């Protein structure tokens, strides 16, 4: 009898700490290089832990819609790549996704700093482990700037002054920078944050932290960028069919020579450039009297486990393998940016698997100061509220003051909707 009890206890312990062979699913978004690397990593981790993992991958566009519909229908994958701001939508109370703290015996959580763990925690539950940290940085085509006879800018004034020089030295179709739609709204956000010292949305009150003057000056600054020939006008970007930067022939040809992008998208924006063109990251441009550099930094994405999965233990083993174990880390490489996991980062650095420019960009993101970004900034309704009214300003339908009023009203409406 004692032997039977002991056997049962051992079996139970084994079940808690390690799962039997399971058929799992993992979903993510990304580009081709990420798809290939993740599939290789899943094979390696599956072989190591005795699981079979079916990959489900898409591009960025539409992934939020797909994942949300799956979660609503309880058909989501066991293991998921989730955009950090979505956590508050899926799991405001911490119950929408599995609590990874329950698998701390399987997942080595000591590889993440406390602030990173906090970023993935909702209402006390660790709903997602940050894969990497990312931030918006200025990247310039140094080759084109050299051709214009200019040093890369360090301030907004220097950028503004570059517009006419580009036109004079290189031609009317050359621009030192670009920003339309979301990128324009984020440039506006950066400028206003630097000026006011506040994030647009206050994380404590979940409401707007800027004054109307902050909005007006940020909107007017966008107008200055267009008027100085620094960026193509909104109408011209629309005329080209709103093609993404990395698909824009003018970017590939160096005729657009600067952008403001996530540092984790280095390969996406550098791949289209010819070998004779050099892409360089610079520190955030500043303005006189600014109160903060205003870095827009966040966990780029997290790995989460489905709350509805009945194979959570197996999913946790695979998750730990992908983020902490040599087999998974080696296969994934830096296709999701510089890893947040200390072990993974050290492994890739010692293997020279991260390019120096990625390390340099990541350092700029980590070292720059700025108020915390509110997840609601990335909700589609908040983004639409900014973009739609900035577009009205760009087309001359509203002046800066009217656009600011409309923008404030629309953002407040969106926030109220989200809060309720």
């Amino acid at each position: 009898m004692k032997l039977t009890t002991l056997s049962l206890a051992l079996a139970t312990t084994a079940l808690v700490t390690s799962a039997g062979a399971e058929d799992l699913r993992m979903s993510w978004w990304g580009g081709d290089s990420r798809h290939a690397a993740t599939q290789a990593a899943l094979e390696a981790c599956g072989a190591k832990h005795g699981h079979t993992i079916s990959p489900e991958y898409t591009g960025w566009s539409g992934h939020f819609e797909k994942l949300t519909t799956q979660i609503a229908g309880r058909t989501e994958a066991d293991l998921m790549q989730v955009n950090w701001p979505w956590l508050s939508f899926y799991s405001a109370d911490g119950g929408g996704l599995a609590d990874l703290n329950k698998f701390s015996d399987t997942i080595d959580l000591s590889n993440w700093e406390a602030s990173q763990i906090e970023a993935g925690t909702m209402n006390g539950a660790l709903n997602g482990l940050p894969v990497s940290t990312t931030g918006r940085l200025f990247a310039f085509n140094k080759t084109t700037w050299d051709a214009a006879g200019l040093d890369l800018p360090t301030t907004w004034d220097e950028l503004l002054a570059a517009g006419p020089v580009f036109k004079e030295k290189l031609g009317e179709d050359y621009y030192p920078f670009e920003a339309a739609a979301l990128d324009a709204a984020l440039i506006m956000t950066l400028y206003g944050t630097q000026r006011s010292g506040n994030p647009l949305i206050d994380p404590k009150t979940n409401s707007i932290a800027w004054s109307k003057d902050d909005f007006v000056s940020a909107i007017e600054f966008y107008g200055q960028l267009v008027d100085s020939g620094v960026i193509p006008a909104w109408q011209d970007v629309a005329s080209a069919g709103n093609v993404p930067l990395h698909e824009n022939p003018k970017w590939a040809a160096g005729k657009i020579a600067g952008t403001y992008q996530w540092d984790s998208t280095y390969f996406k924006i550098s791949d289209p450039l010819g070998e004779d063109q050099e892409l360089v990251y610079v520190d955030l441009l500043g303005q006189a009297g600014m109160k903060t550099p205003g870095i827009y930094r966040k966990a780029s994405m997290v790995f989460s486990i489905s709350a509805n999965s009945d194979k959570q233990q197996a999913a946790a083993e695979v998750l730990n393998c992908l983020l902490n174990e040599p087999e998974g880390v080696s296969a994934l490489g830096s296709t999701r940016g510089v890893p947040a996991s200390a072990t993974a980062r050290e492994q890739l650095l010692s293997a020279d698997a991260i390019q120096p420019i990625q390390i340099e960009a990541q350092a700029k993101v980590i070292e720059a100061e700025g108020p915390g970004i509110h997840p609601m900034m990335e909700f589609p309704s908040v983004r639409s509220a900014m973009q739609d009214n900035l577009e009205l300003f760009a087309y001359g339908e509203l002046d800066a003051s009217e656009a600011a009023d409309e923008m404030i009203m629309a953002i407040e409406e969106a926030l109220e909707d989200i809060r309720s």
Partner: protein
Amino acid sequence: MGGDSKYLGLAYVAPYALGLLLFTAFPFLSSLYLSFTDYDLLSSPEWVGLDNYERLFTRDRTFDKSLRVTLTYVAMTVPLKLVFALFIAVVLNYRLKGINLFRTAYYVPSILGGSIAIAVLWRYIFAGDGLMNMILMAVGIEPINWFGDPENALFTITLLRLWQFGSAMVIFLAALQSVDKSLYEAAAIDGAGPWQMFRNITLPLITPVIFFNLIMQTVHAFQEFNGPYIITQGGPLKSTYLLPLYIYDEAFKDFDMGYASAISWVLFAIIMVLTLLAFWSSKKWVYYAGDERN
């Protein structure tokens, strides 16, 4: 019919009937229920009565704009497409050498037309420095901002739909070929010219098909999504923001399924009213063989 045959018949229609109930009737009625709720997909629907409809008709400026854009788009697209499809069908009805090749060639855009790839191709053709502006400049005409100017963007999307005239054209062609040739011979003997024959013989005899195409094209136009979604994303200044795009944004970007359902039902009501109007008016202009009015 014997008992066994009756059950056999029911068994034959059962798959279709079940499919209709599960995949059409159930979602259809569910969306009606959801239109009276606040539902974000992740939590249970909460009954809000007529709130969604009240917001739609009294406070939603985007809906007003989107509805205007949609009606303008339908008013432009449907007549243009019908006239164009009929014109091409008349041309292709002539017995010319290699006419089948031409018929196929004209139908091909309709097979490809609704695809994402064609929308992307359209984007490149009408881009600021695209093929269309190159042609214009080559003949000395100023380039046009097809997508970036709110005055032109909807028309450019209309052109994409117009290009997909093949299905309407094929139906017109079949109708033209079914017109009794002896009527033309009699008219020719009476001295009627081609235009008189077309106006007084062809058009009246194909009115049932014109009516059918009118209904189908109207319904399709109200449901247009791919073109504006891929090419303009509803812009600029929401000048191509058709109601299906608005429904999609509300449902899958803002996850306001209740509100999206309410917009869908208003769109359904508009299509229904216009269809009923068309049916009502058809008594005055559609000719059916064997009709008592003949």
